[in-house]
């Protein structure tokens, strides 16, 4: 153990920290711990397991939480703690809830690992705050409602199954509507979780708030894979052109000599888009497709018809 006086080290110290390092990487099998502590020479008769218990108790008394579940050791709190405030804990819970509606896959798994790395570093105060915040419903997301959570999980599954759906939902006018569509993904829109779907004709996007869905039925037909959502081109002018912020699904096509801008929009619910563009009044004009331009004119005419 001793090479030079300055390099003298403590074997118990090394083994306990090595065990901790293994726990940081993930769950550790009982046998691997015993192998570590006995230098791989455990014959079933030595007192290695007693040593292990002493280490575990030292960790426990120090404040590190290690639990044995199904013959594996799991780390529940660590050596180095993060200094997290109530606001931080609330933010973490919010992000966790946001992750819940993401489709299963790498992002979701990596984010769960990200959260795990933070959670095992909570100090007592952060743990208490976590429990308090977790039991309150003061956050803004609608999906905190358990009934909605089930619906969200179902939608997530249907998005992955890639089969057509028959949906009955309440449209923005408050009417019950029947729709056959191909589910695409779940997104947040105006603080609501929406199911984004492609209509049966393969060109119209629908963004339906999950809370407005009355029933969902999976059909034994594969979802459309070849369909291309409608591309809408519109012009914005004057003050709107100066202040307009492009959405993620939009691009600026060109700037005209009068400083008006041509915007190309793809992948937005056309009913919602028409409503949005109506709000812009005379500062906006749909250029294509023709059917949507006509829908807009029709909506203007109908509104004028009220007077």
């Amino acid at each position: 153990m001793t090479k030079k006086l300055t390099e003298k080290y403590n074997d118990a110290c090394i083994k306990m920290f090595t065990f901790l390092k293994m726990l940081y990487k993930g769950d550790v099998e009982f046998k691997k711990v015993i192998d570590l502590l006995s230098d791989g020479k455990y014959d079933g008769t030595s007192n290695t397991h007693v040593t292990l218990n002493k280490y575990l108790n030292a960790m426990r008394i120090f404040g590190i939480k290690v639990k044995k579940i199904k013959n594996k050791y799991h780390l529940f709190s660590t050596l180095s703690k993060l200094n997290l405030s109530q606001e931080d804990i609330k933010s973490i819970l919010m992000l966790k809830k946001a992750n819940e509606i993401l489709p299963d896959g790498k992002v979701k798994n990596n984010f769960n690992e990200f959260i795990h790395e933070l959670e095992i570093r909570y100090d007592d105060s952060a743990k208490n705050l976590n429990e308090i915040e977790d039991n309150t419903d003061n956050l803004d997301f609608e999906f905190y409602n358990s009934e909605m959570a089930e619906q969200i999980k179902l939608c997530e599954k249907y998005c992955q199954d890639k089969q057509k759906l028959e949906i009955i939902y309440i449209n923005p006018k408050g009417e019950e509507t029947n729709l056959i569509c191909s589910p695409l993904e779940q997104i947040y829109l105006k603080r609501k979780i929406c199911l984004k779907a492609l209509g049966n004709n393969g060109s119209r996007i629908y963004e339906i708030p999950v809370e407005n869905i009355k029933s969902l039925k999976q059909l034994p037909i594969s979802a459309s894979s070849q369909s291309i959502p409608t591309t809408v081109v519109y012009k914005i002018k004057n003050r709107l052109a100066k202040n307009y912020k492009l959405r993620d699904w939009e691009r600026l096509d060109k700037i005209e000599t009068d400083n008006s801008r041509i915007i190309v929009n793809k992948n937005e619910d056309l009913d919602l888009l028409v409503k949005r563009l109506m709000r812009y009044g005379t500062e906006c004009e749909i250029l294509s497709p023709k059917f949507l331009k006509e829908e807009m004119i029709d909506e203007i005419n109908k509104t004028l018809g009220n007077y």
Partner: protein
Amino acid sequence: MKEFSKTQKVTYNLMSFTAYKALVLFSLLSEGPKSYDEICDYFYNKTYLNEKISIDTLRVYINSLKRIGCEVKRVRGTDKISRYFISASPFELKLTVEQLQSAVKVYKSIVKNIDIRDLISIENLFEKIGSYIDNQDFIADIKKVSMLKDVDKNILNELIECCERNEEVTITYNSPNSGEKQIEILADKINIENGKIYLYGFGFEYMQYGSFLLSRIKKIDDIKPADKIPENFRKIKVVYELKCNPDYFTPEDNEKIIKKTSDKLTIEVQTSNEFLLKQRLLGFGADCKILEPDDFKNSFIQLLKNMKAGYYCD
């Protein structure tokens, strides 16, 4: 542990004191530089230990910490006393690029749909995480998806407080039409609309309620308490009818439902900003009909006619 529960005494039979001392030393040196005397005092006053530690034993522990991957450094202050501290350890928060990227993606999925205060809190959390890890790209990636990237956070925080106290603020605003100018506003609220952050309030220049893009606010020149909204603010009362399912309609703060049937609502709204109201009513399309006053109704009809003309003049 059963023995401990009974006697409340920790003995050598119960735990490894060597392991416990190593943990105590690790924790102490992680806090910052500590001299031998300070370490001794800490050990002496520590529950379950109550004994000093020799300098040779300390060296053995420090060597052990180094061996398991800790960077233990020694500094000598102006008092000529050596102090030890752990500058890096294998137990620090380490997040992989994939884990960090997933956090950026999850944040991006909600960034435009949360309250401004939550937005600030989440970004503060990310900044804190950024300070614990060695990855310069993480905060840069968060900034790319952030709505606060063009916004001065100090101005934002100050304006949030002004809104809570309904104070009168004078700001320097870079107006898209008239360039940089000072504007006096009675601060009301900060809201996110279409991915942009706005300050809402009563503007003294046009004596009407308005919205101001936060990214265009260059500085806050003055803040003073305000008693109430001045009486000379132009304010109009508009009544409109809306065809809808009343269960799915949420009135704005300045709206009052005055009549309700199973498929129609009559709503009274008070506003000093006709532009913002017209925008809202246009969004309802043909489901909305303005009942009164006539001059507002006529100006709305003219607006619709102009919109229609826009489609036929090309």
